[in-house]
């Protein structure tokens, strides 16, 4: 099976029996690959694998599937939709040459946009393993992926925020209080998105009506979402509930997706249900996907693949459905997959780069749990690096403390910080609304006058 990959260092020859072994051994260190038993055994072996990987022609990835074509619909999606014309400019390159090609000035925004359909996730994961953090940032920075529903997200110079107003028992007033706080701090242009405490259709519908009523009443140029399972959302669309975005967590193998209760046909059904409503005013990007390294191993469906390559395969699933928003929830899964701040930061930069290179509107839930060896300083570092890299959106959680999901993310203040520090702006339609409402001035400073009393009277008068 497959060809033998090898690298000789100081007279010792490392052999890697197939492509997936080579990819796994070449991965920068992280706890999840150790847990899966696929990581390099030494620092030298890791670099030996990277040296061997650098010599692998990109074409190899079209001929050697890392998860069998016959038994995995994600592999079939990847290979059946590959665009050889788009691939042509890099088809003669090895993985190592491709890294240098990406960093060269000739690989500009338009070139990279045209290349995206010609790349498979395995090619992209492979090249990322040869790249330093600054390479991941520099190349991502050149890419622009713009999406539209009721506003324009992802243009260069912009940074949007998902307003995440979760509450442990979905109390409408508790959620409304957090929504108000977020809007008055300038968050919510990516989406106002609630993780519901339960997946009941009735409770989800109630939250959707709450958000939609608020948006209508104050003419907020944004979209809402309750992040329930896609089957719940499809049911609500059929009942005429105001669904803007169709959400689903996805992964990079058929087996891992099955553990989420989904497959590609179901995602297509959800996408078409969303489109049938025609609610977008500026565009019809309406899917919202979340991912995260480690989910395939967690579902025992990783096929001996390293977690970063599995993650990148999830982006091939996402791009099939023209999403408005995609984000990795990078540190949520815990220290058995990403042990500390260093591993979380590396994974966040990889996920953003890989998603962008494949043409996705990548955002990031920059986050950690309390048993990971990380803290808010690590989040500040990753936030700043991703701001430089041009991340489309981040999370806005009150005080960075999600009281429902019990993890720490980024806050409304953090979004303002990174906008100020790097000269970034919200989605233009949302920014104009912030000005009209007297919430922000044109320099991005938050104001303390304007229609704030009306806003919260509006929210709490029902």
């Amino acid at each position, binding site marked *: 099976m497959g060809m033998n990959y090898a690298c000789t260092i100081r007279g010792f020859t490392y052999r890697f029996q197939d492509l997936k072994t080579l990819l796994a051994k070449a991965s920068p260190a992280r706890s999840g690959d150790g847990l899966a038993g696929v990581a390099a055994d030494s620092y030298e072996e890791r670099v030996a694998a990277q040296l061997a990987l650098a010599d692998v022609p990109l074409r190899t990835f079209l001929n050697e599937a890392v998860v069998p074509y016959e038994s995995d619909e994600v592999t079939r999606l990847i290979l059946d939709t590959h665009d050889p014309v788009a691939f042509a400019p890099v088809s003669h390159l090895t993985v190592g040459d491709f890294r240098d090609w990406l960093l060269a000035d000739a690989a500009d925004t338009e070139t990279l946009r045209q290349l995206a359909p010609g790349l498979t996730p395995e090619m992209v994961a492979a090249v990322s393993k040869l790249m330093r953090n600054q390479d991941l940032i520099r190349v991502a920075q050149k890419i622009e992926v713009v999406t539209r529903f009721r506003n324009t997200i992802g243009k260069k110079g912009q940074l949007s925020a998902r307003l995440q107003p979760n509450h442990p028992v979905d109390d409408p007033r508790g959620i409304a*209080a*957090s929504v108000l706080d977020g809007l008055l701090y300038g968050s919510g242009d990516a989406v106002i998105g609630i993780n519901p405490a339960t997946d009941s259709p009735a409770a989800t519908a109630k939250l959707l009506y709450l958000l939609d009523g608020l948006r209508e009443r104050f003419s907020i140029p944004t979209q809402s979402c309750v992040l329930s399972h896609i089957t719940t959302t499809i049911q609500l669309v059929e009942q005429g509930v105001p669904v803007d975005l169709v959400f689903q967590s996805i992964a990079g193998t058929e087996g891992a997706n099955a553990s989420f209760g989904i497959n590609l046909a179901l995602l297509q059904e959800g996408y078409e249900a969303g489109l049938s409503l025609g609610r977008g005013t500026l565009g019809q990007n309406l899917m919202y996907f979340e991912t995260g390294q480690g989910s395939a191993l967690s579902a025992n469906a990783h096929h001996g693949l390293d977690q970063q390559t599995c993650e990148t395969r999830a982006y091939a699933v996402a791009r099939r459905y023209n999403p408005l928003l995609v984000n990795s929830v990078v540190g949520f899964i815990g220290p058995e997959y990403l042990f500390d701040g260093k591993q979380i930061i590396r994974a966040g930069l990889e996920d953003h780069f890989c998603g962008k290179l494949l043409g996705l509107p990548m955002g990031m839930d920059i986050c950690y749990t309390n048993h990971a060896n990380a803290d808010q300083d690590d989040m500040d570092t990753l936030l700043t690096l991703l701001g430089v890299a041009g991340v489309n959106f981040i999370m806005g959680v009150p005080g960075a403390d999600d009281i429902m999901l019990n993890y720490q993310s980024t806050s409304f*203040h953090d979004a303002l910080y990174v906008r100020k520090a790097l000269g970034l702006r919200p989605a233009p339609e949302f920014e104009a609304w912030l000005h009209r409402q007297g919430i922000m001035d044109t320099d991005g400073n938050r104001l303390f006058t304007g229609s704030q009393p009306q806003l919260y009277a509006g929210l709490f008068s029902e």
Partner: protein
Amino acid sequence: MNEPQKLPVETDEWTALKAFTEARIALGKTGVSVPVRASLAFRLAHAHAKDAVYSALDTDALMQALAPLELPVYWLQSRAEHRDMYLQRPDYGRQLAPQSAEALREIAAQPADVAIVVADGLSATAVNLYAGTVVQGLVQASRDQGFTLAPLTLVEQGRVAIGDEIGHLLNARMVVMLIGERPGLSSADSLGAYLTFAPAPGLTDERRNCISNIRQQGLPPAMAVEKIMYLVSEAFRLKLTGVALKDTTDTPPILPAGPDAGQLS
């Protein structure tokens, strides 16, 4: 005389909304940043959570609390030799270290109805605070109801599933595992209780029931004992635990053990 300079911190007009949520809203700002008091309050909450994750079982206090129960007590270790290994290798935390398994085999325990297992989990702090009281209550109630008890066991670097291996080695019909839950910023001292009927190595979450958030400000220990004993009786009546065993008593609910139950098993 100069006026004292006004501090740049601006408070938010909507602080009254804090009544509706525990979320960190209306923090105010200086520039665009969180004011120092709110920033340090967050750090303190995180410090409590981190200290809980790296806390250790208080051996002397636990032994003292358990001594009056007149049951043998065994100290056991999982295959995770230290905390960082425990955090990276959940599979090790689910298995007894070979010498601990051997020690239990050597007991050649007589069949018993209930084995009570206590493990540090992700918060030994929670165990140190509440496990003594809960175990005392469970032993008393079990004796009142005529259940026989296996020796008590305390496990270092343990995860939920290790209770099943222990219950199996102790020849117990049912295991009650008390374990420190993953600390959140709002609570670093929650104890969880996991029940398995017919415990054996390799069982998974859907075969267990979980009672979460056992702590003074959550489900107080005395109420937790009542809930656990209700489930124990029902489990013996139905000869099962897990998704098919439902709580029909008042709130708070008893959850089937799952990824959302707080403790990563």
